[in-house]
């Protein structure tokens, strides 16, 4: 993802969450977001059966 798209993501997401980002933080947040989205892509491309339970199954 290019920087403008990441910046748009940061702007929209932090506004929705009520986090105020100072300009001097942006470069580091952008770097970490790009890394995290890379890991998210790795996870989301896993082919897993629909019926597989997530790990933290709740027992009543």
């Amino acid at each position, binding site marked *: 993802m290019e920087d403008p798209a990441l910046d748009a993501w940061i702007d929209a997401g932090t506004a929705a969450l009520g986090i105020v980002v100072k300009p001097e*933080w942006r470069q580091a947040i952008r770097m*970490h977001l790009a890394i995290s989205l890379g*890991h*998210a892509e790795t*996870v989301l491309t*896993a082919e*897993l059966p629909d019926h597989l339970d997530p790990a933290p199954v709740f027992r009543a």
Partner: protein
Amino acid sequence: MNPFATATEIAAAVREGRTTSSAVIDACLARIERLNPVLNAFTAVTAERARARAAGTKTGPLAGVPFAVKNLIDIAGLPTLAGSRINRDHPPAAADAPLVTRLEAAGAILVGALNMGEYAYDFTGENGHEGASRNPHDLARMSGGSSGGSGSAVGGGLVPLALGSDTNGSIRVPSSFCGLFGLKPTYGRLTRAGSFPFVSSLDHLGPFASSVTDLAVSYDAMQGYDPADAGCADRPVETVSGGLESGIGGLRIASAGGYFRAGASPEALAAVDAIASALGVTNTVTIPQAQRARSAAYIITTTEGAALHLDRLRTRPDDFDPDVRDRLIAGALVPAAAAVQAQKFRRWFRDQMLHLFDSVDAILAPATPCVAPLIGQKTFVLDGKELPLRPNIGIYTQPISFIGLPVVAVPVPTASGLPIGVQIITAPWREDLALRIARLLEVRGAARTLQPEL
């Protein structure tokens, strides 16, 4: 007494009347006073409490043994900082964490709280508020994180025993950089009650020491179900110290290949190979989809961590360590679908790993891709690519703690004079096997701590 005497050597001397707990504690406090300005390992020293307790302590498997805890573990009367500035405003803890109480019941004596990376989101040992804890083998280098003060304090001979936490590698990384034995038990084995959380489904507590016997004795003292920790398993105590010398006859041990060799520095590979050679191990196993396991651990960590701290990110962002704040803000922006899928993948990966343990009893892997980097270093070269250091030191530890497997990190000296760690990974609840293997490596001299001159 030698400042690098092991916990069990100290306890034997106290029990046999060759020294007293008070003498041990006085010497320990004097060494902390002299060396903490150099190592920056401690954030609080509980001298008065330690002296009072020492006066009556003569018995127990850890009689008179000084220990300290990462400052996310409750100490009665102190705010539990978790490496942060924000938590300084918290009221003091009303009681000690159960692990502190259990170690003291075994005769050990708490001497203080230890520096750590803010809110445990760290592999470096740096801290924007307290300054970095320093590597006792080279003061210009990182202690590793996030239990950096734990590594620094035990590695520097300030205490023989320390507790840390490990969410993605925070016991194993400082063990590697500071050249110590570290135990990350099975998820759910040791109670985390009275500790400040990071990622509930990944957080573990465990000990650092300079000998395998010390790990085993302290671990035995800390076991036991505790309903106050929702993640604590209701299992009987399974002591390990009595079987440490049983050797490895009949155990099937293999080195992890593929992902766990790609990107490792020559020192890391040489250390794993030396450990394998000392054990006569020639087999290699492939841990399936380790890269994806690491990514899933990363996603669960960054999203859960962000959720935990969201209100603080909204209201007090300037009071965070910037290196931690900016990662947490990024974590808050990761799609929920990725976090859920990471938990589904976790189930799949756990099943695969349990299947793998049908054919092996233990797996060897590097603890870190390299020896301790320089404090302040922001990038390093991994597999020929320059990458940000902070998010990548845990590449070999994260896939393992992802499914809560027990690991003993063992220290191996390298040609550079700096240590590096190797992980001994076993099936869930088989800490006994990992410790037995570590003990044999210690006896054979393949795994050993170094005693820096400070």
